[in-house]
């Protein structure tokens, strides 16, 4: 694990929290704002934040094409919340910059506004019970092809994976529980 270097996309959002969580797992974590920084990492986390803000900056500074190219070469990617939205092939009812890598369709702000944000226990297959922190969270309306459902809340899909891709609608980086970060690190090859 110590040999793995994880990049945290640091354009906007809660990237420092992910950086600390990865460091706590014993791997190396760096902030990524440029294609040159992206070239140094084995895996990438796209953090929570505003998906429109991150998407626009990604496009303006050519990180979208760089991320897609690195993914094709074998880089693993985990998107939390805004990151999940950016990884989806379809964002229901929205036209915004995206990566479109994963066979999922997502609904932005699917649980409502901030007053509807919530915490709850989730059963994650194959990890077990985790505390889910949902902040103006999206959900996955459907998955297809190789994409696989890992957790749901009130019959809405909130976690899924597809080969080297992982998405969570909630924020494991805010809980201090490392298990999902460790799960992602297993997807990352040295």
């Amino acid at each position, binding site marked *: 694990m110590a040999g793995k270097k994880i990049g945290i996309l*640091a*354009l*906007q*959002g*809660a*990237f*420092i*929290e992910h950086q600390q969580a990865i460091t706590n797992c014993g791997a190396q974590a760096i902030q990524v*704002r440029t294609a040159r920084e992206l070239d140094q990492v084995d895996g990438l986390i796209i953090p*929570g*934040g*505003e998906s*429109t*803000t991150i998407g*626009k*900056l990604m496009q*303006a*500074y050519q990180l979208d094409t760089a991320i897609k190219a690195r993914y094709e070469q074998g880089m693993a990617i985990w998107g939390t*919340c*805004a990151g999940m939205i950016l990884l989806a092939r379809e964002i229901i009812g*929205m036209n915004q910059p995206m990566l479109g890598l994963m066979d999922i369709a997502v609904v*932005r*702000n699917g649980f409502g*506004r*901030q*007053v*509807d*944000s*919530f*915490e*709850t*226990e989730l059963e994650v297959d194959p990890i077990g019970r985790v505390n889910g*922190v949902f*902040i*103006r969270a999206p959900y996955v309306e459907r998955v297809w092809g190789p994409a696989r459902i890992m957790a749901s809340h009130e019959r809405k899909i909130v976690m899924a994976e597809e080969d080297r891709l992982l998405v969570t609608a909630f*924020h494991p980086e*805010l809980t201090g529980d490392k298990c999902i970060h460790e799960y992602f690190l297993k997807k990352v090859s040295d």
Partner: protein
Amino acid sequence: MVEKGTFTLKSGLAQMLKGGVIMDVTTPEQAKIAEAAGACAVMALERVPADIRAAGGIARMADPTIILKIMEAVTIPVMAKCRIGHFVEAQVLESLGVDYIDESEVLSPADDKYHVNKNDFKVPFVCGARNLGEALRRIGEGAAMIRTKGEPGTGNVIEAVRHIRKVNDEIRWISNLPAEELMTAAKELQAPYELVLEVARLKALPVVNFAAGGIATPSDAALMMQLGCDGIFVGSGIFKSGDPAKRAKAIVAATTYYNDAAVLAEVSRDLGEAMVGINIDTIKPEERMQDRGW
């Protein structure tokens, strides 16, 4: 079990806003320009601070119609301001479903002694501070996010710089004190003891801290980020300038690439007129907004 309105959720939304720019808007059209430029949230207002300053009189919470129209216009979080101590304006804003309430010195204070008990609400609050004691008193009342006060509506960054330097200075001081000196330090700061202990342990504020009050250019935003702020509020700086869309986009880029002078130089080119600034020493003491708050 499903829990709502927890402090993790309140401070968590502020964590998601980090590295971003929150822009003051007064119409749905301005809100769309802000969102298209990459704002991570907007502050829905009837008038921007520069116009509040110019108009004088009593500044109150915005008309709910304006706030609701702005909430319909964009998908990013929408904040709104209530007067200091005006817990009924806060109740109204919560019922509208705004994502964050700014208990703000930009509006006329409604109470000359007490702030809103923000722990009573499910919606999170942001409050202004000029120093560590003021920040910790607001957090003690339940604020889940802090911003420097600066001097709103001036386009002059000097007060925001003074306030972040003061907060950082006092955090460094607290972080180096032996345990037995922390109670007296709390007394000097006029801050809750438990929060002083937490600052000493974290060597940082326990919540997100944005810059506000006088930011008008990409370099102003990057300056505040290099001084250690987590993100930027721009009030009058965007929609009081010559080319709001371009300036907004430039300030967003500058807040992300705050350490990259080449990017800052690029985005600072041909922005048109900046807002007209005001020198702080020409403002009458009774018109200084930063002195509101207790």
